[in-house]
């Protein structure tokens, strides 16, 4: 006859201590991007905030440049959506493009643990002598 030993209830300090593991699950839908996002850096000189919506099957990104006290409205643009693999339906990133006339910005964005990570590739077209520049910023959702 086989006997079984029942393990006592395991004590945990957080949900991820559970076995099988529990805890945070990544959102692989387009909803991971939707909402109002604000920079985690209060002194940011880059993107102050962004509003992202999914409307009519399009991801609409509406960004605002710093300063946060008087944000510069970049207006809404439609972003391209990318999965995490050619045979996957899991949404991994978006790519948005802004043409300001005097400069262009490509925004490459993804979420990690509910933080929006945006890398921007910024190219000047105005012959001002400014160097094209790269920046990477983090945002948390406020709504």
């Amino acid at each position: 006859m086989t006997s079984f030993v029942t393990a006592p209830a395991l004590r945990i300090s957080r949900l991820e201590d559970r076995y099988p593991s529990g805890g945070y699950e990544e959102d692989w839908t387009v909803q991971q991007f939707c909402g109002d996002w604000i920079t985690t850096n209060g002194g940011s000189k880059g993107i102050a905030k962004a509003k992202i919506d999914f409307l009519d099957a399009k991801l609409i990104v509406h960004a605002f440049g710093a300063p946060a006290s008087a944000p510069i409205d970049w207006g809404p643009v439609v972003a391209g959506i990318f999965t995490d693999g050619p045979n996957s339906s899991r949404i991994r990133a978006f790519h948005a493009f802004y043409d300001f006339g005097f400069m262009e910005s490509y925004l490459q964005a993804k979420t990690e643990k509910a933080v929006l990570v945006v890398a921007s590739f910024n190219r000047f077209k105005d012959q001002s002598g400014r160097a094209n520049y790269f920046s990477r910023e983090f945002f948390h959702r406020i709504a």
Partner: protein
Amino acid sequence: MGPLKSSRTEDCPDSPLPQPAQLDIRPLLGTWVNTNASGWGIAKVIISEEKNGAYIEAFGSGSPALIEWGKRPLSTIYAKDVGSSTAMAFDAQYDLEFMDVRMEGNCNLGLLVLACLNVFKDGSGRSNYFSREFFGRKETV
């Protein structure tokens, strides 16, 4: 020249810009090998400087041999800010006929972080996808 236009505060230089604004691209140059030797993505890239600009040559993972993507010019090279003269990022475009790949790379802590935005054009039903991989510089080029 009038006041500089800006989309955000960091578009405005903190001090007068150096003239001429020539970027030092040496931080980008070299042979970069994927930190994940068994990855299914890009195995290796070579970034070089030639008389008429900088180029990237990418090699996709493959068996029995790597898949050569060919050499393409770096479309734009980026510094860390508007007043910097040191390159730290770039983008490049590959048209592989059946798909387009926009590469966006940046150097960070001795690594090349390479993101690819992959768009299929062949009607195969494959999803357009995003990849992000890390590369270490091979010392002996």
